[in-house]
């Protein structure tokens, strides 16, 4: 996680420096609405990202801002 986060940051900085292009979330902050941290139990048969998308469907969102990511099968 640390390695890919560093890589992501470095590439974002280099893209900004070379092309003047900012990360997509700068002009579209709704992107952040797909992120939720926390713990849960899920079937071992599910792919980890499918387990995440499934739990997002029922997660609480006090302001209704959480973006329910589509399941892989959809």
């Amino acid at each position, binding site marked *: 996680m640390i390695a890919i986060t560093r890589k992501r940051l470095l590439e974002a900085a280099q893209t900004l420096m070379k092309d003047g292009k900012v990360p997509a979330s700068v*002009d579209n902050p709704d992107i952040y609405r797909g992120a939720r*941290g*926390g713990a849960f139990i899920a079937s*071992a048969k599910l792919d980890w990202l499918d387990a995440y998308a499934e739990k997002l469907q029922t997660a609480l969102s*006090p302001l209704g801002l959480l973006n329910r990511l589509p399941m892989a099968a959809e």
Partner: protein
Amino acid sequence: MLLGEQLIAFRDTDGRVGIMEQSLPASLRLAVLRTQRGRRPALRLSRLEFDVEGNCLDMPNVPPAQDFKARIKAKATRWSSAQASSGPTWARARKRRRCQHRGPDVAGARALPPACTSASATGSSRSKATSTPSHFGFLHVGGVKTEDVDPETINKWAVGDRAPDYKSTETEWGTMYAAYRPAEPHTYYYRFAHFLFPFITLTPNGFFEDQVACTLNVPMDDTHTMTYNLTWKKKTRPLETLKNGEWIPGLEPKVEYLPDTNDWYGRHRLAARRENDYLIDRDMQKNVNYTGIRASAGRTRR
């Protein structure tokens, strides 16, 4: 202090929030030079008054005939009107198109006291700490056994296996990972966390269902970070107490600060810091938890 820039935040009499650079506007510096060559060498800068847009409103110490406030503009216009929501005041660079996002999903949020850390704990390393899947089970709850936590919650799985597998991937918002270990038969206990551009982390210690919280590691400069924790007051308590209700040693957010000073790094300074080895308690480290640190500045609380 933000990214090495010295900024002044203030409210006007209408309650509007303004943020401007601490340094003098270039036009004022030029004006000062011209004035010093002219008839008034003793211009008192501290008498100037600005509005939230950076306009100079008053120069009470300059004769009306020499007033040049209309020519002075502080660098405040690149910040859009900041708004107060859930405690913190949010500011947005005006160069970008105006967006409707209202900040984190933190209605009824509680903003914990910020913490200024330096040198050894920059934003990068603090984000790193929350991005290390196995650090929680060892460093924070290494001395906690399965039978010490409430058996009715999924927290028991967090201390039952301290060597999880994990997966990670890049996302549109940054990166994410999941640490996972076997739980009930044919199931995994997952802990998901995220890094969000530019310096936000969503930590995994909580119940996914209502874990509305985030940590902002705001870089003041290359060696100082101001950390903020926002959390929804109604969210379920994460793994932070034993089944008898007592705090897990080291997780109680009982933070001591040094007295404030007037310099740019003089607020929200933790008493436990690099110079005193974070007040590490070797006996506690040997017998209770692996950090040996009695209180946590980075953990969320209700």
